[in-house]
C-alpha cells in the first residue's frame, strides 16, 4: 500500500515515514500543499495523510481540489486543530477521517487500515476469502483457522489483492503500490513474492488462490462473501 504523507513539520513527517515503512507501507512525503497535490494526482497513492496548516495550499483547499477533480483517494486529516468545527469542515471538504494531534501511532494505523479496508469494500476488519482470513487489526493471517506466517511484503501483497478480489492487478501496479520509487523495481521480484505467497496459501496445490493471466497480471480467485 502506498501512503502519501503531506506534513510540513519535518520531524513528524520523518517519524511517520519511518513508522509506516516499518509497517511495510510505501511512503511518499510532501512538505507543502502544491507538492502534495501533485503527488496525490499523479502517483498511484492508496491513501493520503494530510495536515491542515500547510504552506502554499491549505490542507482543506487541497482536499477540495482533489474531490472537485473526482478523486476518490481515501484521505485522513492529521492536524493540531482539534475543534469539532475544524473536524466538520475537514470532513465536509471531503476527508474520510480526522485525527487530532497529538495522536497515538497505533490509532493512526488502525484508522488507516479501516479506511483502506472500506475502500476495498470490506465492512469488517477481518478480510475473509475462502479459507484465508486476514485480520487488519492484528495484521495476522490464518488459513483454515490455522495461523500462517507471512513476511511483511507477503502480507502487504495479500492485503492488496484482497482489497481487489476478482480484479486483474498488473505487475506494474503491484510494484508501484508495494515498492518505493527509489527501490529496484525488478518485476521478477513480484513474481518471486507471488510464488512464495502461493506456496504458503496453497501448499497442496489444490486451492489455486492466485491466477496468473499472462501479459496482464494476477487475479485473486477466492470466494469472498457478499461479493
Amino acid at each position, binding site marked *: 500500500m502506498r501512503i502519501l504523507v503531506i506534513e510540513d*513539520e519535518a*520531524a*513528524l513527517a520523518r*517519524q*511517520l515515514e*519511518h*513508522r509506516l515503512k516499518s509497517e511495510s507501507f510505501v511512503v511518499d512525503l510532501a512538505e507543502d500543499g502544491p507538492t502534495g497535490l501533485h503527488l496525490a494526482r499523479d502517483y498511484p497513492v492508496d491513501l493520503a495523510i494530510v495536515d491542515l*496548516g500547510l504552506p502554499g495550499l491549505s490542507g482543506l483547499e487541497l482536499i477540495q481540489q482533489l474531490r472537485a477533480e473526482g478523486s476518490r483517494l481515501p484521505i485522513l486529516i492529521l492536524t*493540531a*486543530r*482539534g*475543534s*469539532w*468545527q475544524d*473536524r*466538520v469542515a475537514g*470532513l*465536509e471538504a471531503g476527508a*474520510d*477521517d*480526522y485525527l*487530532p*494531534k*497529538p*495522536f*497515538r*501511532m497505533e*490509532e493512526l494505523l*488502525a*484508522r488507516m487500515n*479501516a479506511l483502506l479496508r472500506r475502500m476495498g469494500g470490506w*465492512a469488517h*476488519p477481518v478480510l475473509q476469502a475462502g479459507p484465508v482470513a486476514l485480520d487488519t487489526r492484528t495484521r495476522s493471517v490464518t488459513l483454515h483457522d490455522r495461523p500462517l506466517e507471512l513476511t511483511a511484503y507477503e502480507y502487504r501483497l495479500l492485503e492488496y489483492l484482497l482489497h481487489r478480489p476478482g480484479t486483474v492487478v498488473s505487475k506494474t501496479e503491484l510494484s508501484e503500490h508495494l515498492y518505493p520509487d527509489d527501490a529496484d523495481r525488478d518485476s521478477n521480484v513480484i513474481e518471486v513474492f507471488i510464488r512464495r505467497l502461493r506456496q504458503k496459501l496453497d501448499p497442496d496445490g489444490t486451492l489455486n488462490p492466485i491466477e496468473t493471466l499472462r501479459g496482464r497480471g494476477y487475479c485473486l480467485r477466492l470466494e469472498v462473501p457478499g461479493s
Partner: protein
Amino acid sequence: MMPSLQRRLLVVATLVVAGFLGITGLILDQAFRGSLERAQEDRLQGYLYTLLTAADLRDDRLAVPGELPEAGFHTVGSGLYARILDRRGSVSWQSDSLTGVRFDTGEHLEPGERRFRTVDTGEEELYLLTYGLFWEEPDAGSGEFTLYVAETTEPRMHQLAAYRTSLWGWLAAAAVALLVTQALVLRWGLKPLRRVATDLGAMENGQKSALDGHYPREIRGLTESLNQLIRSERERTTRYRNSLADLAHSLKTPLAVLRSTLEADSGRRIPPEAMEQIERIHATVNYQLGRAAAAGGGGRFGESISVRPVAERILNSVPRTRHAGPPEIRLDCGSDLRFPGPEGDLMEILGNLVDNACKWCDTRVELAARVIGKESHRLLELTVDDDGPGVPETQRERILKRGGRADESRPGHGIGLAIVRELVESYHGEVHVETSAFGGARFRIRLPLR
C-alpha cells in the same frame, strides 16, 4: 422595579395639569362670584334710588307711599325687601314684602355711609345694602335715616352653580384632552428609545448584529457607543479564541513529535513515566485550552445560530468516521430553534456527544432539540440517545469530569464530555446523564435562552 419613563412623565404631567387647571378654576370661580356680587350691589343701588325717588317725609317719618315699579316690594316673602329706620332705630317704613318675615336690622349708619354685605336671616340668605342719609324737605323738616334694601341670594346662587358646573366640566374635559395629547406625544417622543430596546432584543436573539437603525441625535451617541462596545467585545473574544487555538496548535505538534519519537523505536524500552507525562501534557492542553475557550464563550452578546443545520452537519460528518460503519441516526429538531452562542460552541457540544454516542451505540443514535419552559424562563433542551450499554448510575458524575472515562478499552481521552460540561456551564446550563428510552445512555443538556 423602576417605573417606565413614559409612566413617570405621565404621572408628572397629570399632576401638573391637575394643579394648573385646579388653580385656574378657583381663580375663575372667584372672579365670577365677585362680578356677580358687584352686579347685585348695583342692582340694590338701583332699588335704593327708586325708593329715594318715591320717598316722602311726613311727621318726621320717611316713607315710600304708593306703588313701586318693582312688584317684589309689594309681594309678601318675595325675596326683595326694603326698610327705613330713623335715628332712634324705629322702623320709619318697610316694604309690604317684609310682612311676617324675620329681618333683623339694628345698625345705624351716618349719612353718606354705605355698606354692602351678605346676611343670613336664618330662613334665607340675603344681599343687604345699607345706606345712611340725611333727609330734608323744606316744609316737612329733616332727619337722619338708615335705608335697608335686601334681595335673596338664591337666583345668584343658581347662576353661580350653573356657572361652576360648566366651568369644571370644561376644565375636566380640557384636562383629559391635555393628558391624552401628552400621552400621545410621549409615546411618539419615546419611540426611538423603544426602538433601541427592540433592536437590542433582536441583537440578543442574533437577528441583528448591530444597532443599525436611524436614531435621533440625542441617543445616537449612546447607540454608537453600544455598537462600538459590542464590536470590540466580539473582536476581543475572537482574538482570545484565536490565540488559544494558536497556543494549542503550537503545543500539539511538538507533542506529537515527542510522542512518536518515543513510540518509534520500539526496540528501546520507553520509561512509562515519560509516556505518562506526555499524556498528561496532552490532556492538559486539550482540556484546559478547550475549557479556557469555553470560559471565554458563554455566548457573545447578540450571537446565536440555528440548531438544525449545525446538527445536520454534525450528523453527516461525525458518524462517518465510526469504524463499525455509520449507525441509524434520527434527528428531531425544529427549524426555528436557535442556540444562544457561536457555531463553534454548538458544534463542540453536539460533536462530542454524537461522537460519544456513535462510539458506544449498537445501531441507533438519536439527537433531539426542543424549547421547554415558560415565556420568561425558556430553555433549549438537547438530548443525545444511544442504544449502547448505557452508563451505570455510579459512573454518571465521573464521566463528565476531566479524564473520567467509564471504559478504558475504547479510544478517547475522557476530555470530550468534560469540555461539553464546561461549555454548557459557561452558558449557565446543565448536563445530565440518564437512561435512554432505548436502553443506552441519554445525555440531556438544558441551556437558558435569553
